[in-house]
């Protein structure tokens, strides 16, 4: 059939059909998945950045404006330092970590609804759209974080973590938790749409219960106990500890607690996608 096509392009005009190479062998499942992930990644990144005017600028301006507003608010309320930390950086780390978690969770949970049209190609599975969105969002937040920290460095703030490995670990685990939650919720949203409404209520107070604005160590002991049930608190506090030497950590922080949430939600999400593959794909 390609002789006709090549005619139109003015190529291979004289190749008789018998000399054309035979159609290539079917691709392996892994090859198909890899090319689907690559294609989805490019598409997601493209539409995420170009969906609105100055898409890139907004992504940087939004957290910056957020931090600026909080700084203004707190500078009138109380001192700008918190036991050996720069308060702007303290807020930035909290906000960036929190944003990494919620954006990854919420965007990957809604990936399927946004990409339903693509299931018209049998190569694309529902789980592909979710996994790719989690990676796109994670990469995007990484770029935003690095850009903001570099910007802060220009203003003379010391933004280099004294324990870079702990910093990587803390933010990676926040992403793992967010993407695991997204994977699990994406099946939930597809099967029981009401879950989406309920999650709206859950995400709202999370901002205040995650220690974005305050250090849990500065809270009463009774409250600390409750805060520590929230895995995000563990991630944010470890992230701050990696940046500020001698940061006062609350008792009972655990890498394992956050990791188990991430790993358990990933396994559950993948299992749900496998178990309910037909129901999730059906519209």
């Amino acid at each position, binding site marked *: *059939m390609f002789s006709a096509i090549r005619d139109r392009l003015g190529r291979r005009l004289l190749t008789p059909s018998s000399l054309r190479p035979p159609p290539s062998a079917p691709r392996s499942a892994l090859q198909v998945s890899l090319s689907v992930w690559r294609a989805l990644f*490019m598409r997601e990144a493209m*539409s995420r950045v170009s969906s609105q005017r100055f898409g890139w600028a907004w992504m940087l301006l939004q957290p910056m404006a957020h931090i600026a507003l909080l700084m203004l608010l707190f500078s009138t309320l109380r001192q700008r330092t918190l036991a050996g930390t720069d308060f702007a950086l303290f807020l930035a780390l909290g906000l960036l970590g929190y944003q990494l978690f919620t954006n990854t969770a919420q965007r990957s949970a809604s990936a399927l609804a946004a990409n339903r*049209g693509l299931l*018209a190609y*049998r190569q694309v599975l529902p789980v592909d759209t979710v996994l790719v969105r989690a990676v796109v969002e994670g990469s995007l937040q990484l770029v935003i974080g690095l850009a903001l920290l570099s910007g802060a460095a220009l203003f003379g703030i010391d933004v280099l973590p004294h324990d870079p490995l702990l910093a990587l670990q803390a933010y990676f685990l926040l992403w793992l938790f967010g993407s695991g939650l997204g994977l699990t919720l994406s099946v939930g949203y597809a099967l029981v749409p009401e879950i989406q409404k309920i999650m709206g209520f859950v995400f709202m107070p999370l901002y205040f219960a995650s220690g974005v604005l305050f250090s849990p160590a500065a809270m009463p002991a009774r409250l600390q106990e409750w805060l520590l049930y929230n895995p995000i608190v563990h991630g944010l506090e470890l992230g701050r500890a990696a940046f500020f030497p001698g940061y006062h950590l609350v008792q009972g922080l655990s890498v394992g607690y956050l990791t188990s949430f991430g790993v358990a939600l990933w396994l559950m999400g993948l299992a749900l996608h496998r178990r309910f593959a037909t*129901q999730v*794909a059906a519209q």
Partner: protein
Amino acid sequence: MIELRNVHKRYRTAHGVGRWVLQGITLDIPAQRSVGLVGANGEGKSTLLRLIGGIDTPTKGKVVRHCRTSWPLGLAGGLQSALTGRQNATFVCRIHGQEADIPEKLAFIADFAEIGVAFDEPIKTYSSGMQARLKFAMSMAFDFEVYLVDELTSVGDTAFRKKARAAFDRLADRSSVIMVSHSESTLREFCESGIWLHDGRAHWFDKLDDALTHYKKSINP
């Protein structure tokens, strides 16, 4: 060849499981034979096409494709409205593993679709006819053996239909089409054989005319 083995399909509705749309279809659709799917509304023509295309799974039974099969053309979806025609075409090239040939394929698609500068505009600015042209051009850029077509040509203008016809003629030695359409003339133009869907069962006819006769008899007894 496409094998259908005891294919059953029913959908889940808001009130529990629905009726059986397809019940126990066993068929071999030979490669290189263009087939028209006929049947009244709701008899499962599009459902069968979706199952053959692999974008939906049968409730019971199985579908095996022994040839490279296109996605079902003409069904809603498959294009992202915020992205341009070119970006959508690039995406489809990528998922079909044609990364290396993208420039060549894009040139072909732009040329075949004949939508001019609109190729670089977002899909949301397209008319339904332009979308159909783009989807058809995308499918023509790949070396499929069987093309699945669901009322695709109904939105195109005469020039587009002529072009589609000519394209399928050129592919005739290696490709075929399985087509759903309510237009008898379209079916006659493209297909030799027919499948008549009735009461959840499929009846194969070597001659399309026989399928059409049975279909017409069933709606006007």
